[in-house]
């Protein structure tokens, strides 16, 4: 039961209906991509929850650092002019 024999970890993303984006639903261990896909189908779509599955080796994901959340997302914080509500328009104006 040595550690090197453990199946690698995969992250599972599912498209629930045509037209929607794939969304992360969880993870699983599998020897290779094909097995990961089949296990993801058997575990995460037992009740027709998906029409498409992506599996990605967990090691391939680069994540932002939670300790840096504030400075990392800071550039967008004060840019309220990126939102439509920033702009004043007359009350009667239609279709805008």
């Amino acid at each position: 039961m040595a550690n090197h024999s453990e199946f690698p970890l995969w992250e599972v993303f599912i498209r629930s209906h045509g037209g929607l984006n794939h969304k992360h639903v969880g993870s699983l261990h599998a020897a290779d991509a094909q097995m990961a896909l089949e296990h993801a189908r058997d575990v995460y779509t037992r009740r027709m929850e998906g029409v498409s599955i992506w599996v990605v080796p967990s090691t391939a994901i680069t994540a932002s650092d939670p300790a840096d959340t504030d400075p990392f997302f800071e550039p967008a914080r004060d840019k309220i002019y990126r939102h439509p509500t920033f702009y004043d328009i007359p009350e009667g104006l239609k279709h805008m």
Partner: protein
Amino acid sequence: MSTQVSLEERFQARIDAEQKIEPKDWMPEAYRKTLIRQISQHAHSEVVGMLPEGNWITRAPSLRRKVALLAKIQDEAGHGLYLYSAAETLGISREELYNELLSGKAKYSSIFNYPTLTWADMGAVGWLVDGAAIMNQVALCKCSYGPYARAMVRVCKEESFHQRQGFELLLTLSKGTPEQRAMAQDAINRWWWPSMMMFGPNDSDSPHSAQSMRWKIKRYSNDTLRQKFVDMIAEQIKVLNMTLPDPDLRWNEERGHYDFGAIDWTEFNEVLKGNGPCNRERLAARRKAWEEGAWVREAAMAHAAKRQQSV
């Protein structure tokens, strides 16, 4: 030391503000350890929980009952997976978790150390055992640790059919022959008290509860959830026209709840210590499955390595 204190204070402030804690966030070691213990026990319970029901697959009385039982057991395998995955985000490997189960070091829910003696047990397990589990799990959907809470949301969604099929099974027996009615009543009698014990010790004897409540891992106390369970089941059993094996069970107008008798914790502690009717059998079955599956795991890894080379 002073920075440690402030980290812990900031952590508690996040919890108090109902923010979810995610895997890479700073957390106190004791929070991590408590979660690993609780989530892995929960995962082991799902996996061992397949065994008492697996006992009846080949003897299900109809195809309809058989597919329902199979679907329920497959769900439980999936729930084990969601939970192991959640535990792994805390920095423990699947292999370590599984070794702890197989070596007997880790605990799982004591309820699965009771045998399933008759077909009616499939109904009582679904209605009472899954009913109690759902009550615990609904509360855990709001747990402060993100991956655990998300796993619980999936589990609760899937599990709602488990309790219904159990009740339906008992309802069918309750309308059957006198022998079938007696079989259903016997199953209820045997599963009632072990189900009540699934909520854990009384609040006054539950040493870790206060800290878990502060960390919002636990949202309701053991006794609060147990009372909720009694109130629910005491009403539902009227539809079955059967009884619960508790002479002290009666509606208390003043409290707005059912009163119930004292729980025999000696039995609970004995089963916990490994002296339940099926403790040894359950672990032996898990070990056998693990050992006999070794060649499949090795072959899959060898196949994957070979394919990688040929690319």
